[in-house]
């Protein structure tokens, strides 16, 4: 079994937080128990099926031994094991419960959209997308909301998942002591591009986090003029926001600092000039069904637009 370590793994078996670690322990305990159960039953079946019995006729009545096997193997032993497991679950439950989120010292609101993640830092007035920065060592309260259908917020390395349901105020706690990038992905089927709706949690030391947040608060200023004009005249601002400009759309990811993000289209492609060109030219090929149309721009316009977007650091 590949137990991928850190990096941007999405494995449940590479926990990087208290709650994820508790779940991981629960899993290994249950795996050991399950293996024993499986081993016992399989052995009994194989012994029963393959044992040579000579010509002795089969027993026609329920021998006391057979009945005892059913009673103990089928009911009493499982009952004891299940009670023990139940107690273990109750012990694990608090650390992963939603109520933990109230401990959070920083609140971040994550809003699921078809098919990207809007991320808001209410205190700081920062809005970004698909890249969730958190400080390490600080309990972070995630308010999981949705703008449309049900999504599910899931970063396996940091905690269990929590559904984002219209009308429900769901919350979850994220807290880690280790800096790193953790991949997350929508876990509730949400329509056409459910598959291409990933995001990254970037856990940073508090000072670097603060620096990042302060930078994100800045509105966009200037940038290459030609590209900005392409952006404004092609209708991009109808869906996207770039703070400090006339683009105030609310339907698509906030692009104020898009140049600083490592991926595009909810983790679908790396944020490079080549990929950005492919994306702008034919978004429906890169991520079929997503809501961004091809704009039919010329190569020069696209080059200018890329210059502009990549300048939005």
């Amino acid at each position, binding site marked *: 079994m*590949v137990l*991928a370590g850190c990096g941007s*793994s*999405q494995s*449940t*078996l590479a926990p990087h937080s208290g709650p994820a670690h*508790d*779940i991981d322990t*629960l*899993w290994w305990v*249950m795996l050991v*128990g*399950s293996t024993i*159960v*499986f081993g016992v*039953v*399989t052995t*009994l079946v194989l012994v029963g*099926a393959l044992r040579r019995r000579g010509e002795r006729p*089969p027993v026609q009545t*329920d*021998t006391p031994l*057979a*009945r005892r*096997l*059913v009673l103990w*193997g*089928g009911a009493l032993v*499982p009952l004891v094991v*299940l009670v023990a*497991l139940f107690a*273990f*679950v109750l012990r*694990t*439950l608090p650390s*992963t419960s*939603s*109520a933990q989120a109230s401990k959070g010292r920083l609140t971040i609101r994550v809003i699921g959209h078809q098919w990207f993640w809007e991320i808001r830092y209410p205190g700081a007035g920062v809005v970004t997308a698909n890249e969730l920065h958190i400080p390490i060592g600080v309990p972070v309260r995630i308010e999981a909301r949705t703008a*449309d*259908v049900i999504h599910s917020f*899931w970063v*396996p390395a940091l905690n269990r*998942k*929590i559904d984002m*349901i*219209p009308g*429900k105020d*769901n*919350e979850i706690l994220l807290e880690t002591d280790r800096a790193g990038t953790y991949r997350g*992905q*929508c*876990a*509730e*089927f949400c329509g056409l591009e*459910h*598959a291409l709706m*990933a995001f990254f949690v970037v856990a940073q030391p508090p000072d670097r986090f603060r620096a990042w947040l302060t930078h994100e608060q800045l509105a966009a200023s200037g940038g290459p003029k030609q590209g900005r004009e392409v952006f404004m005249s092609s209708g991009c601002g109808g869906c996207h926001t770039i703070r400090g400009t006339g683009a105030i759309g609310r339907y698509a990811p906030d692009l104020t600092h898009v140049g600083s993000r490592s991926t595009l289209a909810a*983790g679908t492609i790396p944020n490079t000039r080549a990929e950005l060109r492919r994306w702008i030219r034919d978004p429906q090929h890169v991520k*079929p*069904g997503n809501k961004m149309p091809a704009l039919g721009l010329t190569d020069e316009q696209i080059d200018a637009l890329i210059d502009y977007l990549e300048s939005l650091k």
Partner: protein
Amino acid sequence: MAATDIAAAERVERLERLWAEPHGLWTFLTTVDHKKIGKRYLVTAFAFFVLAGAEALTMRTQLAQPGERLVGPKEFNQLFSMHGITMIFLFVTPMLSGFGNYFVPLMIGARDMAFPRMNALSYWIFLGAGFFMYSSFLFQLAPNDGWFNYVPLSDSVFTPERNIDFYNLGLLFLTISTTAGAVNFIVTILRMRAPGMSINRMPLFCWALLATSLSVIFALPALSAANIMLELQRKFGFHFFDVKKGGDPLLWQHLFWIFGHPDVYIIFLPAIGIVSTIIPTFSRRPVVAYTWVALATMSTGFIGFGVWVHHMFATGLPQVTMIFYSAASMLITIPSGVQVFAWTATVLTGRPVLRTPMLYVLGFIVVFVVGGVTGVMFAAIPFDQQVTDSYFVVAHFHYVLFGGAVFPIFAAIHYWFPKITGRMMSERLGVVGFWIFFVGFNLTFFPMHISGLLGMPRRVWTYEHGLGWDVYNLLSTIGAFTLALGILLVVVNVLLSLSGGPLAGPDPWGANTLEWATTSPPPDYNFPVVPTVRSANPNWDPADRLEDERRLREGSYVLDDGHETPATTVLDADVDRVLAMPSESPWPFALALALTIFFTLFLVAHFVFAAISSVLIFAALLGWHATEPQQS
């Protein structure tokens, strides 16, 4: 020849005349013989199984490697939705109904189901609803929001096309069939057992179908309510699930899973009934702890109604609620544990004969235990919240449903083929087919546990390279094609054996239940004389079978004066009346046709015409009831 023998031959001849149905198209449409209807169920359901398999192979090819573009998300979402809908609603349940239809009357010594025409109606509606739902592919509008179809994704804002109308109306339509079938099984099992087959001597397959049918009666209304509410919201602007107008999307989830979890047992219980039937035959002894197994079957059906919330642990419900459902979900493993150990003890104290049906059953026990232990894991709330909606859950429920239901179905195909056709299947081809099937199954679904633990969500049409999922997906795909090869071998075996298999005789396996006390295939009237039953293993009582022959010669319990079968009391199975059974009738087909027209018009939103077409429904019902037979 003694005079009594001549009299017996005359009686049998009279039964032949009374129960024979002419051949031809008209009889094809009007038959009410449970054996013909059972065979139709089996063939039709298997055809849907092949379709669902083709959908699965397409998906597995798409997922064989990251970034594959064989199909896009639009097609993929229809494929996985229809795969689930087909396997659950159009294959497993009707397939098991097919075995139930064919074998319940034979196992209890009856000459037909309690309501033969309603039985025909159930089949025709199943066929109509199946065509109805599959016609959606012609317009590329197959249901596309998964088999549990969560709102608001499935409302008219996010899925404005007719995909979900096919889903809602198709399921409503099909539910009529399933419910009618369940009522029929309940009455047949409780009231039509041979005299002497008291309830504590009833075959475990009948116990299983009784538990299943009771679950159907109580579970399906929740699904129908949800379907009706959603259709009202989609077509007439109601707001049951619309938050902005005071509705709640979680209402759908509750209604769906109040149906959906019992449905797991509706799928699985008849299958373990098959297991409890086959194990004694091939262990050469009665099942150990019969009473406990029967009680476990019933209690599984009952507790199955108290665990649905474990499908919703990630929705943010209060912790107290979750703890209750976690405990109930753990508790339900106890009856399953009892059954697994009863089977194991039967094998251990018997002298197993490893013929193909037994191989499938032993294979079933092994894979079902895997599905069972991962099932317990899903009762562990935090772990459930971590891996639900990942491939781990896909692995789990395929071990439970494919392992728990399809393995027994394949055991049943091999086991009952001689009874249905009068011919044996090839044992060598059967064994080879089993091993390919077994290896293919595990190769397909075991790696999914790992890809799920590595974070792969379910219902994704593609995935990214570099997350550690590639190799497990490739293995699953190779496994899927291996499994398909195994299934193909079984089909080949069936087709070759239909005409070329050696003759089976009445009882090729030396089995303990009554279907083996009559010829293979059984005559139209099933038994020349109502069988004598004095134990839970009536076909292992040679004295009773001789008693049947004596009764035939004497003419007692032959019931050759009319189209008749006895009704008996619920607990003790004492004869309390003789039922006059209906003969061929065109009305079930006509009613199913009228319903198909109604649902089709409703689908295309011609509500006025739909209302007018309901006249046809009432006309068919009138015709049906105008010919109600006289009770004797």
